């Protein structure tokens, strides 16, 4: 066999391999191998998802599917961009977008939580949570805020007696007995001629001296003033208007309600009885007492 024939024979034998046809999906296989591998966290999440989907009930399954679709949308929107579109630098920088999205989300959640907490504090202050009828927990709200307890106490005092807007409800404030001048405390910025009886509540706020009222002596010292005022209004017949008359009535009510010892912080041993005959039971509400006296008068 000559050298040329040997080469031709060998070449023809080798070109029998031209009948070999590789599979058509070679390029797809290469591209699949060129794509970056899935992160381990993603693989674990998919495994957990499959396990939860197989074990959970139908409702949980639908919820998880919905959650997965939302997460997928979020990942498509905020996830890192394709690695094939950039080099190593862009591969590193591609995580800036998801990091920024995560940071914004955390900031929004934190801000929302802070605003919600602040709004809760503004709407429902800490002192308004007390439901004690005597305002045991309402000591911090001296202006009669929007709380129910204070409003009720003030409505019984302040609405009837207009000068009692500064009354600290339930603080067991009794006018300090001034034996020399029982009505000396009645001039706390009030006009003596118009509302002389409104002073006790004013004096109660002016000099809040909480004392345990074991004895009804304050009532004894202040009630005559009211009686004098009431008597001075009524029999004179100087033509007082209805407003003045109602003011006089309210003065009586205010005095009664203010003089009444508070039951809870300053528990009285025995019920007090004022000059007008109204029994001031410790558990009775000032408003009840006041209206009861109003009906009686």
């Amino acid at each position, binding site marked *: *066999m000559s*050298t040329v024939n*040997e*080469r031709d*024979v*060998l*070449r023809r*034998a*080798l*070109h*029998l*391999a*031209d*009948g*070999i*046809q*590789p*599979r058509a999906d*070679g*390029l797809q*296989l*290469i*591209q699949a*191998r*060129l794509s970056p591998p899935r992160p381990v966290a993603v693989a674990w999440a998919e495994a957990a998802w499959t396990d939860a989907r197989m074990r959970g009930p139908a409702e949980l399954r639908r919820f998880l599917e919905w959650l997965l679709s939302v997460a997928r949308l979020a990942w498509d929107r905020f996830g890192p961009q394709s*690695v*094939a*579109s*950039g*080099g190593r630098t*862009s591969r590193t920088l591609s995580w800036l977008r998801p990091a920024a999205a995560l940071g914004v989300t955390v900031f929004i959640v934190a801000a929302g939580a802070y605003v919600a907490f602040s709004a809760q504090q503004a709407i429902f202050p800490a002192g308004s949570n007390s439901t004690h009828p005597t305002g045991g927990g309402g000591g911090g709200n001296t202006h009669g805020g929007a709380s129910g307890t204070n409003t009720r106490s003030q409505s019984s005092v302040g609405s009837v007696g207009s000068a009692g807007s500064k009354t600290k409800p339930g603080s067991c404030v009794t006018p300090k007995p001034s034996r020399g001048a029982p009505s000396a405390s009645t001039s706390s910025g009030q006009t003596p001629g118009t509302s002389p009886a409104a002073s006790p509540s004013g004096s109660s706020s002016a000099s809040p001296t909480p004392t345990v009222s074991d004895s009804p002596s304050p009532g004894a010292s202040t009630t005559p003033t009211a009686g004098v005022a009431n008597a001075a209004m009524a029999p004179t017949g100087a033509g007082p208007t209805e407003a003045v008359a109602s003011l006089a009535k309210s003065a009586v009510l205010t005095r009664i309600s203010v003089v009444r010892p508070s039951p809870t912080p300053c528990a009285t041993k025995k019920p007090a009885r004022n000059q007008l005959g109204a029994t001031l039971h410790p558990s009775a509400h000032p408003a009840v007492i006041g209206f009861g006296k109003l009906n009686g008068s």
Partner: protein
Amino acid sequence: MTASEPPDVAARPIHVTETLVADVALGSVPADSVADEAVTELYATHYRSLVRLAALLVRDTGIAEEVVQDSFVAMHGAWRRLRDSEKALSYLRQSVVNRSRSVLRHRTVVERNAPKTAPDEPSAEHGAIALLERSAVIAALRTLPPRQREALVLRFYADMSEAQIADAMCISKGAVKSHTARAMQALRTVLERDA
């Protein structure tokens, strides 16, 4: 490129991969995108011939495809070091030859230690391989040492020059000549003995 083409056209790169490399040099196209395009282009033009070349070396079409796919993946990773399509094709051939050697080496170890199993039924896909195996020349080629067989396959199937064979086999031109001459002598001896 022909001589009738205008000079401005001749000055431009005519191959797709060369165009992409030129774009990379200008900084207009990302490198990974160029590598993807080069893989696609080289796959369309040289994938089948490389698979057949690997099949001649490893005697298995499936393994030959895996070898060539591995070579493409390696070329994609090494694309920054490659400048043009010729170097990429040379890189592919060299990678195919080296990986075929690795396959044969691994197969030798496996066949030495693994128990023998019954051969499977040849499928239609293996028809070409079976036809190839029935050839006396190919059977004689199997008896040659690996380097001599590689030299003959690259020389008479891939029609490569001595320089290209030397580059693909990572040997010198003189070694290529020596391997080719000894392989032809051994093949002649085997065929005369069998005849």
